[in-house]
């Protein structure tokens, strides 16, 4: 089982990102479960969502407390919410930021993870360029698969096209592809 926890703020598509990951995993023949941290969603409030992937049926219904990977959609959460809680020692960390780890002040957490398991990508800027909207979720999914190799990029792009028809899907898929290439190049 591979467990991903996503942190962001209401309105950033955090829940949609987990759903898209689960669809991409399903497209690869895996069992997947995506669900939000249930709450009264408000724009700007801290939000978490979860995605599990496995080769067998997933029966577990508890929130993800010891994730294999973290996706941080909003770096302002790094110092206000305990986003790193339970991250496994061999886990992955992807942050939406144009700054680097040192610039974000999280050397300690990042240093505890294996080499090549941490990446920052300016997903909001990439999304703005492609979609005209500051929605970093689709771009981050591209970065996520580049970092973790948990899924093929094509499965993520297919999931994006499935969710968003026409030009919106094309633009988000292009953003995901650019973030994928950026993280691969690191």
């Amino acid at each position, binding site marked *: 089982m591979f467990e991903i926890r996503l942190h962001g703020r209401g309105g950033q598509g955090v829940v949609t990102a*987990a*759903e898209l990951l*689960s*669809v991409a*995993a*399903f*497209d690869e023949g895996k*069992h*997947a*479960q*995506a*669900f*939000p941290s*249930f*709450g*009264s969603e408000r724009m700007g409030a801290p939000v978490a969502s979860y995605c599990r992937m496995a080769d067998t049926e*997933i*029966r*577990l*219904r*508890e*929130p993800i*407390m010891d994730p294999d990977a973290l996706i941080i959609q909003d770096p302002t959460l790094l110092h206000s919410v305990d986003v790193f809680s339970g991250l496994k020692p061999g886990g992955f960390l992807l942050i939406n930021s144009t700054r680097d780890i040192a610039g974000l002040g999280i050397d300690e957490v990042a240093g505890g993870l294996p080499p090549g398991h941490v990446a920052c990508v300016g997903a909001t800027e990439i999304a703005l360029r492609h979609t005209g909207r500051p929605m970093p979720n689709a771009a981050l999914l591209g970065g996520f698969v580049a970092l973790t190799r948990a899924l093929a990029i094509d499965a993520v792009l297919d999931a994006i096209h499935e969710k968003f028809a026409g030009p919106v899907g094309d633009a988000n898929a292009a953003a995901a592809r650019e973030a994928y290439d950026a993280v691969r190049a690191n």
Partner: protein
Amino acid sequence: MLRQIEGSQGIAEAVALCRPQVVCAYPITPQTHIVEGVGALVKSGDLENCEFINVESEFAALSVAIGASAVGARSYTATASQGLLFMAEAVYNAAGLGLPIVMTVGNRAIGAPINIWNDHSDSMALKDAGWIQLYAETNQEAADLHIQAFRLAEELSCPVMVCVDGFILTHAYERLDIPTQAEVDAYLPPFDPVQQLDTDNPYSIGAMVGPEAFTEVRYLAHQKQIDALEVIPRIAAEFEASFGRVAGGLLRPYRCEDAETIVVALGSVNGTIKDVVDAERAEGARIGSVTIGAFRPFPLAELHDVLAGAKRIICVEKALAPGLGGILASNVRMALRGEAQPVLTVIAGLGGRPITRASLADVFRRAEREALDDVTFLDLNREVVGAQIARAAGTRGSGPIAENLLRALNPGLVHRVPPNEDAKQ
């Protein structure tokens, strides 16, 4: 076809495949995406010959379903939480009139304090209204139970409530096998009502019944539920034969054969419980679990057969009867009347509190050591509770409990405090 979709969407599609003729909904919180999904299918033309009626309240939603069902239309609605309570009078009426309405309850807590999250307080409040109550363990089962529910309701002329854990199931994306229209049509015949208001052959339903016959009417309602104990497994078996997968039925034991400890629960928490059972079994514990599929009628004899050999029973339940303890446990004790083993209650998941494997394993182990109380509140914050008890004992004007607890848990949050608290600070 297998697809990765949201639970509510899967239920909406399954309901649409049942060809409801009237779907009424009050689409405001507490509500799920289910009726929205059905509405979209009506509008797109995928669901034909169905009138989707937006009403002004939950009371109206079920009242319209009652009227529609009484004139022979297959009728459906969905609600949750406060919405179910608001339609409570109509819930009793639907059962008392014997109208085969199917309703989804996307289980959520009941206020006050306000809480929108999952537990079973809502459906448990209406457990004895005369409806058949089925509980879904997974989203696949939730979808499948709706197809079975229309068969069941119409065969018995009794309304059926399909209880689906709010958020945990309704908002979760999982793989779902949504059957084809032809498959559902082969399983579910058109609605053939046993009573139908008809202007060409006028009669009335809902007559006033005095003491001379009211007991007999209620006896027959009870008998209908007892009959359902035979019908539910048959319909589930036919479903398995038609669709090739198990769904529904009265109950489903898991690794109970030689179990000394058996955990009993309703709904989606059974998935987590099964994972804990596997882990504990790997450590040598003799433990199993039972998923209760039908809570009304309650499968007393069938449950007795599964539980009688165990040394102890633990009921994990998402509702509380204040002043009594566990509702499920009370029913399980009824099944085990005359037997000696303890039936313990673990109140868990209230108002959406996560039920974790670690906490469940802890209480199961305590039960095995005979160190578990009759009623245990899983992961209860004793510090906060103790402080509130001391606060209330110390001053008459200690203020509202919920706000006091929130302030204790989140000292940084600003809450309006009662004047005497202000004076103390």
